C-alpha cells in the first residue's frame, strides 16, 4: 500500500512539473546564436531585464518556416523571434505572426522601406559575403566570385551555405553578371540552369555549412580556402579572436533585412511588444555595429553609428553599390522547388 501511495505521489509530482512551465513561462526571445546573440545579450537582453524587471529567457535557431510553424502551434513556446525575410512573408500570410502597432514603434517613415512589414520590424541589415583568411593569401586573395569558382587560380576547398539561397546568386555573379542584375538573370529562361552548371563546375571542392558560426571555424581550421559567410561573423572573429580574415566587398554580396516578429497567440504579448519596441529604439540599434557590424534599420539610428565602424557595415556608402537586396518574392515562390533541386544536385556524386 505504501509503495502505491509513493508511486501515485511521484506520478502527480511528475505531472505537475510537466504542466508548470507551460502555465508560468518567462518571456522568450529567439535569435541566431553565436557571437551575434552574445552581442544582443550584452546590449539589449540584459539591460532590458534591468530596466523593465521583466524576466527574459533565450533560445536559438537556424531558421526554417517549418520550425516557426511548429513553435507557433497552440500556445507558442517562443514569443519574440528574429526571422529572415521569407519567413516573415510566409509566416504573416499564414497568420502565425501578430500584426505590429507601427504607431507605437515610432512610425513607418522612421525605418528603411524594406524594414517595414505588417507583421515584422527590421532588426538589422546584414549581408552574405565572400570571406577568406588574409594570412593564407599574402599576395592578394580572391577579388570576385569568378575567383571563388576558379580553383586553378586559387586552389583549395570552398564552402557555401547549404541550400540554393545565395548560392545561386553568387554562381550568377561569377558569370560576370553585375549584382544589381542577378535576379533578372535568374528569372530569365535558363538562368537557373546556368547557375547550377556553375556550381557543378567546382562541386568536388565544395562543402556546405548550415550554422552561421561555421564559416569562421572552417577558415580558422584551414578546412577551406574561402567561404561565403555572414559579414558580422567574419568581423567578430577578427576583433575577438585576432584573426586576419578579409571580406571581398567588391566581389558582390547579397544583403538582407532580418526582422523581429511576435508569434500569434503569445501568452506574453504585451511584454513581447515592449521588448520589440526596446530593441528598435534608435540609440539601441546604433550600439550594435561597435561589436558586430550589422547595420541599423532605422534611418535615425544610421546617423548615430560612429564613422569608424561604417566600413564594415553592408549599408555603408562605400559597400552598398556592390550589393544586391535579397529578392524575397523570387525566393518565396521558388524556394521549395529550388531546394529540392539543390538537394538532389548536392546528393549526387
Amino acid at each position, binding site marked *: 500500500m505504501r509503495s502505491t501511495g509513493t508511486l501515485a505521489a511521484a506520478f502527480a509530482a511528475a505531472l505537475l512539473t510537466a504542466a508548470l512551465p507551460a502555465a508560468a513561462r518567462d518571456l522568450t526571445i529567439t535569435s541566431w546564436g553565436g557571437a551575434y546573440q552574445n552581442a544582443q545579450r550584452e546590449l539589449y537582453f540584459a539591460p532590458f531585464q534591468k530596466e523593465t524587471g521583466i524576466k527574459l529567457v533565450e533560445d536559438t535557431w537556424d531558421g*526554417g*518556416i*517549418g*520550425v516557426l*510553424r*511548429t513553435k507557433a502551434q497552440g500556445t507558442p513556446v517562443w514569443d519574440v523571434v528574429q526571422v529572415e525575410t521569407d519567413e516573415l512573408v*510566409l509566416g504573416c*500570410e*499564414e*497568420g502565425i505572426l501578430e500584426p505590429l502597432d507601427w504607431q507605437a514603434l515610432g512610425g513607418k517613415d522612421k525605418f528603411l522601406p524594406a524594414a517595414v512589414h505588417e507583421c515584422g520590424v527590421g532588426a538589422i541589415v546584414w549581408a552574405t559575403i565572400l570571406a577568406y583568411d588574409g594570412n593564407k593569401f599574402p599576395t592578394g586573395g580572391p577579388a570576385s566570385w569568378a575567383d571563388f569558382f576558379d580553383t586553378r587560380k586559387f586552389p583549395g*576547398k570552398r564552402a557555401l551555405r*547549404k541550400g540554393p539561397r545565395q548560392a545561386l546568386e553568387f554562381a550568377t555573379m561569377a558569370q560576370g553578371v553585375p549584382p544589381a542584375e542577378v535576379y533578372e538573370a535568374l528569372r530569365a529562361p535558363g538562368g537557373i540552369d546556368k547557375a547550377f552548371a556553375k556550381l557543378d563546375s567546382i562541386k568536388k571542392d*565544395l*562543402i*556546405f555549412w548550415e550554422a552561421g558560426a561555421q564559416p569562421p571555424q572552417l577558415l580558422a*581550421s*584551414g*578546412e577551406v580556402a574561402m567561404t561565403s559567410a555572414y559579414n558580422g561573423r567574419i568581423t567578430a572573429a577578427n576583433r575577438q579572436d585576432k584573426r586576419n580574415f578579409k571580406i571581398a566587398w567588391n566581389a558582390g554580396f547579397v544583403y538582407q533585412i532580418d526582422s523581429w516578429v511576435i508569434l500569434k497567440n503569445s501568452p506574453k504579448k504585451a511584454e513581447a511588444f515592449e521588448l520589440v519596441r526596446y530593441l528598435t529604439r534608435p540609440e539601441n540599434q546604433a550600439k550594435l555595429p561597435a561589436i558586430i557590424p550589422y547595420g541599423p534599420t532605422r534611418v535615425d539610428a544610421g546617423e548615430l553609428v560612429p564613422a569608424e565602424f561604417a566600413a564594415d557595415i553592408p549599408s555603408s556608402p562605400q559597400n552598398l553599390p556592390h550589393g544586391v537586396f535579397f529578392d524575397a*518574392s523570387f525566393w*518565396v*515562390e*521558388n524556394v*521549395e*522547388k529550388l*531546394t*529540392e*533541386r539543390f*538537394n*538532389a*544536385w*548536392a*546528393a*549526387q*556524386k
Partner: protein
Amino acid sequence: MATSAVELRRALRRAERRSTLGGLALALPLTAFLVVFFLLPILGMLAKAVENSELAIAMPRSTEALRAWQGLGPPPEPVVAIVAAELKEAHARRQSAMVAQRLNREEAGWRNLILSTARRLPDGPQGSWLETLVAIDPAWGEPAIWAGLRRAARPWTDIFLLAAIDLHRDDHDAIVRVPPDQAIYLDVLLRTFWISALVTLFCLILGYPLAYLLATLPERWANPLLILVLLPFWTSLLVRTAAWIVLLQREGVINDLLVRLGLLAEPVALVFNRTGVLVAMTHVLMPFMVLPLYSVMRGIPLSLTRAALSLGATPFLAFRKVYLPLSMPGVAAGCLLVFILALGYYITPALVGGAADQMISYFVAFFTLQTANWGMAAALATLLLVATLLLYVVYARLVGIDRLRLG
C-alpha cells in the same frame, strides 16, 4: 478414480490458464504503453504520407464540387463560382496560404497564382467567374491549374510516396520517372544501406577480437576493459562526433601527425566526406557490436577449442570449426543491432559528412524541420521502414531468428 483424474486435469488446466492470464496482465501496462506511445504515433506519421487535407479544410465546398466534376480544362461555371467565392473567404480567414502551399507542391509558381488571385478577387463576377479569374491571371484559362486543384481535392494523395521513389505524375496523370537531375531518394536509400553495411563490417572486424579478449581475460582485467568499451555509451553523441571533427580536420591532430612523421606530403581530407562518416559511425556504434559478442563468447567453454587442438587441429582450424560457429549467435545479433541502428543515423553524417554522404534520416529531418513538408518526411520514413522490414525478413530467413542472442 476416473473422475478425480478428470478433475485433476481440469484443475491443472485452470491453474495454467490463470498463470497465463496473470502473465498477460503483467505485460498489459507495457503493451498499452507501446500501443499509445509507439504504434499509434507511427501509424499517424505513416498516414501523413498520403494525407491530402489542405484543400478540404480551407475550401470544403470547392473540394466537394471538384470531386464531383469530371473532365479536362476549366470546369463549368457553377464549380468555378464556388471555387472563386471560397478562395476569397479562405483568404479572409488567412487560410489561402495553406491552399497556395499545397498547390505549389504540384507546380512551382502556383503559390503566387493562388495568393495573388485571392487578394484581387472582386465580390461579384465581372462577366462569368471564369472570365473574372482569367482577367486576373490567364493561367486560370489553362487546364493545368484545374487538374492540379482536382488532384488537391482528392481524399488522399500519392505524390509524396511517388516522390520518395523518384517518380511523379505527368500532365496526363501517368506515373513516370523524374528527370535524372532531380532523382535523389533511391540513391540516398541505397547509400543508407551501403554505409550501414560498411559500418557493420568495420564494427565486426574491430569488435570481434576485442570481445574475444574481454571474454578470455581474467575478470580482474576484463572488467576495467569492459568499462572502457561502455564509456562512449555514457558520453553525449554530439560530443563524440564533434571530437572526431577536431581529430580529423585538415589541420587536425591526425593529419598533423601523419605529415610530421613524413607519411603524408600534404594533409588529406578525412572529414566532411565518406571517410569521416565511416570512422565516426563505427566508433559510435562499436559497443552495440562488442556487448552481444561478449555475452555469447563468455558462454563458450575454452576447453572445446583446447580439445580440438589436442585432437590435432591447427589453431586456425580450431577457431574456424569450433569457436566461430559457437560465437555466430553473437555475430548475428551484433550485426543486426548495428545495422538497424546505423540505418537511422542522422546527426553523425550531418556533422562529419559532405552533401553526398547524407542518409535518408537527414532528409526526413530536413522536410520535418526546414520546409514543414510532413507528407514528404512521412513518405521517406515509410520507405525506410518498409525497406528495413524487408531486409529483416531476408536476414531472418538466412540466419534464423532463433539463432540471435542479444545477451
